């Protein structure tokens, strides 16, 4: 019973990890909106310039930057608890692991035979 009392913790003292609630203001959203539009413009313009192998790298780089901006600000991850930050990071990390392992299988299948 005493243990149960210990966990009845309305002010959340035993779980100090939780993030302070933060209301994101419209000015932040307007800045993000502008950044995303600018990113789109650069993506379209950069695609018309011949940069060889760097074309897809730049396109993916800008897309990833935009995605991070959306995740941090539109999706409020910047102000979330560590639990949620870790969850989001773990998801993308796991996806990268899957990509890396499948690609290393793919490129080593016919090693030296191309």
């Amino acid at each position, binding site marked *: 019973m005493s243990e149960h009392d210990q966990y*009845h*913790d*309305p*002010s*959340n003292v035993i*779980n100090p990890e*939780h*993030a302070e*609630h933060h*209301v*994101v*203001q*419209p000015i932040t*959203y*307007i800045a*993000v*909106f502008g950044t*995303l*539009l600018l990113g*789109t413009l650069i*993506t*379209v313009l950069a*695609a*018309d*310039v*011949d940069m060889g192998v760097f*074309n*897809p790298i730049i*396109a*993916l780089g*800008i*897309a990833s930057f*935009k*995605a991070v901006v*959306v*995740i941090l*600000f*539109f*999706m*409020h991850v910047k102000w*979330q*608890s560590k*639990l*949620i930050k870790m*969850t*989001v990071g*773990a*998801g*993308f990390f*796991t*996806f990268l692991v*899957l*990509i890396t392992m*499948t*690609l290393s299988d*793919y490129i080593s299948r016919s090693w030296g035979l191309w």
Partner: protein
Amino acid sequence: MDNAIATHPHEHAEHHEHVALPQHRHHFETEQQQREAGSFGMWLFLLTEIMFFGGMFFAYLLYRNWYNPAFVAASNQLNVKEGAINTVILIASGFFMALGVWAAEVRKQKLLVIFLVLTTIFGFAFLGVKADEYHEKYEKHHIPGASFDIREFVNPPIDAKTGQPDQKPMSPDMAQKTQLFFFLYFAMTGMHAFHMILGLGILFWLIWRANRGEFSAGYVAPIENFGLYWHFVDIVWLFLFPLLYLINRHPLK
């Protein structure tokens, strides 16, 4: 029930007034805890979505590597102008969704409804442009299957200004592989559009509830979590647009 109270009189005595707010259900210690649990659950769902779309992106990566000339030629057939306009439309939709979360936070009911309606309008605009693009693919016989036409990939039309073909002709073998590009194009943009259609359905429901004032008295979670979903769908498009539309623009110049 009367009987139960009679046999346990002290239970009745201990009963205190308990107002169950939607933002603080009885099984959560604090509002903050309920909210965080909800966000956590929503993110777990979004992780499964990353894996779902990730599989298709991966198929794209391998086949693009394998049949690069076919992917370049097929990509140049997509309507970059409409794709770019759609990117802007979708970013605008996400922007109003984000403002909607803010309006719910500061308990402005009318603003919340307006922002949700704007989110919906831009969502429909996106689907409208998408439908026009799909129709264009239909007219050009670029839908994979029996009526798919590889002629313009094998014998590209002659550019009137230069007198040269507007892109490098391909062998019929490689030209067939353009179907793979269009298959992935329809699979990926189609799945993306399907997510938007589901989202628009949920938006109607949320607008109806927001209009009744359900989300402007501290209960922000449904708006916030739907926002997470909507922004995730945006992110998928942010990758689809350059990967499908902008593979190799410069040979056109």
